[in-house]
């Protein structure tokens, strides 16, 4: 779950990480009132999205007065903002964060994430600020890394050596050590997969302040954090990916006209590859998780049927021990009965309980073509989508 900036900062401040004074606003008037209270020479008006790289997309305004903050909020609120990290449609700005400007002596980047390969938590730091993506991509800048364990940080010597490598020395060393410890504790206790602070501002007084922060929480650990429920959905609860996820289905919309119903991520990816190789265009990626019941599967299939671009459904299923074929066919039946849309269906259903699935299938009035291997099914679906018969 990707949190919005104000949520991320709220959580980090629980761990004594300093953040700039600020307030959330959902209307221009609220923005003006918040800016007046802040009483600062420089103010930031920041669109709240579940995505980063907002600066380049015009999602962050720097203003000199409460009146200008109001105008900036009016310009941002309700607008669809597209950044390199949102979907192609962008995200609607529903709130803005009004913050007092902070004067930086130095801008740093500091992040922690899971290092899957090493099985540890990786601390990354270096020079920060805007444009870091471009500098890293071009090789103009590199970041330093340090692997951290889960039960407490590395010893003070390691952190001090790391601090020296990123150019922190003298009086700031203790403050840097503190922030590493605080972020590590937040990472563990919040079940984060990524905490990224950029910029982490070092002020003239030697304080570290998290001026922008990004926090991704591990969805698998959501059961440990019932108080965060719904935070990932407040921006756009109708997003199709989220609707599918509620039914144990991984779904990603695409631009084509072949609706894909597949169990398992590997088979789902293989199906997309084959469709493209056969000259077709998938309308979506689908991975029905093994935990999905037939009602869930029906909901997932309904998402595909809702898409007006879809000309044909391609069902590619290999039933396993956890999810036999008949469960998926039952889902198909429920979806078609409820949806009433007539679409040609090409099926390749094999594996556990395939005979039972075939018996059930015989009861549905579908315009269906059954294929015995998946390439045959793919080429058939591509031909139908192209208007052939």
């Amino acid at each position: 779950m990707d949190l919005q900036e104000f949520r991320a900062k709220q959580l980090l401040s629980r761990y004594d990480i300093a953040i700039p004074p600020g307030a959330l606003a959902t209307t221009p008037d609220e923005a003006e009132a918040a800016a007046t209270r802040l009483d600062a020479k420089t103010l930031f008006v920041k669109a709240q999205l579940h995505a980063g790289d907002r600066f380049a997309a015009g999602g962050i305004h720097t203003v000199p007065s409460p009146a200008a903050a109001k105008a900036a909020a009016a310009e941002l609120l309700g607008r669809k903002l597209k950044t390199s990290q949102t979907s192609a449609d962008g995200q609607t700005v529903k709130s803005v964060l009004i913050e007092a400007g902070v004067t930086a002596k130095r801008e740093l980047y500091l992040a922690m994430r899971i290092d899957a390969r090493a099985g540890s938590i990786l601390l990354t730091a270096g020079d920060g600020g805007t444009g870091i993506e471009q500098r890293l991509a071009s090789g103009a800048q590199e970041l330093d890394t340090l692997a951290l364990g889960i039960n407490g940080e590395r010893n003070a010597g390691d952190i001090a050596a790391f601090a020296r490598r990123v150019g922190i020395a003298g009086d700031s060393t203790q403050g840097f050590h503190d922030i590493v410890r605080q972020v590590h504790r937040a990472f563990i206790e919040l079940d984060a997969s990524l905490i990224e602070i950029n910029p982490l501002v070092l002020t003239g007084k030697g304080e570290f302040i998290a001026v922008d922060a990004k926090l991704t929480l591990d969805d698998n650990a959501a059961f440990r954090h019932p108080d965060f429920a719904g935070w990932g959905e407040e921006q756009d609860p109708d997003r199709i990916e989220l609707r599918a996820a509620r039914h144990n289905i991984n779904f990603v919309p695409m631009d084509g006209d072949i609706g894909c119903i597949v169990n398992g991520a590997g088979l789902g990816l293989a199906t997309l590859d084959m469709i493209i190789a056969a000259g077709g265009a998938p309308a979506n990626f689908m991975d029905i998780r093994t935990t999905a019941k037939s009602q869930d599967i029906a909901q997932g299939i309904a998402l595909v049927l809702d898409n007006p671009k879809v000309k044909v459904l391609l069902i590619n299923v290999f039933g396993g021990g956890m999810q036999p074929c008949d469960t998926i066919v039952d889902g198909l039946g429920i979806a078609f009965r409820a949806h009433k849309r007539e679409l040609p269906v090409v099926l390749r259903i094999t594996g556990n309980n395939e005979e039972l699935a075939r018996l059930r299938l015989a009861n549905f009035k579908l315009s269906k073509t059954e294929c015995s291997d998946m390439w045959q099914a793919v080429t058939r679906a591509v031909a139908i989508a192209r208007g052939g018969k």
Partner: protein
Amino acid sequence: MAILVDQNTRVLCQGMTGWAGTYHTNRMMQYGTKVVAGVTPGKGGKSHLDVPVFNTVADAMRETGANASAVFVPPAHAGAAMLEAIEAQMPLVVVVTERVPELDMIRVREALVGSRTRLIGPNSQGLLAPDVCQIGVMATDRSKRGHIGVISRSASLTSEIVSQLSGVGLGQSTTVGIGADPVHGIGFVDCLKLMFADPQTEGIVLIGEIGGTEEYEAARYLKDKGLTKPVVALVVGRGAPPQRRMGHAGAFAVHADEDVEGKIAALREARVEIAPSAHLVGATMRDAFKKRAA
């Protein structure tokens, strides 16, 4: 001989008395796997599916000589179950549970360092040595005993490929799902080492996908080692939708070079035969043998 399991493998199931544990343990027993015990804290002393249930893994190992564990414990407690098995020095642990929190897996990985446990998963379909031993939840009806080792990250695609292999007359020595989660136990390279050392295995199929870096590690290992047995690889995800990326530099470090083309090029450089499409893996393996014979 298969890898990791044989006729003497004695399996205990952690979380056997739950719904999923009961259903899949029963399937494994019907397949012929020697299931000797269940472990459910608080249910020790009872019997379930005609085998004794113990409170702890250590008790069950001592009393029954179990030397492998299948973990069906729900996500909230799966991490603790794995740690318990590692502490009891269980030689092989296969974790089927999906959606285990990542930090719990970091704890497990720390516990695995220097331990005698080999852990497979989580989010794995398990391990199958056809006609010998099934520890997991995979479809079994298309598998056939033979000489091909299959290593994969995804359950249903593995079933498909096993079906293709059997279809061209190539049975399997062992199929292993290393698990679909980023933080997991043994990886591609560990499995490759075991399969090269296994006399029953004469050819290896590696099923990779977009994301992660293990295919590169496998390619590096194979290039250094040289292929003493034919290896066929499929890497899926060329047509995957570009995913929304969260986080910049962190994400850069994670995502650099995780693309399909790069993986295919690296594997090809290690002289691995690349299956041109997911439906041609069986045929590619068959042809690889023909080429060797010629």
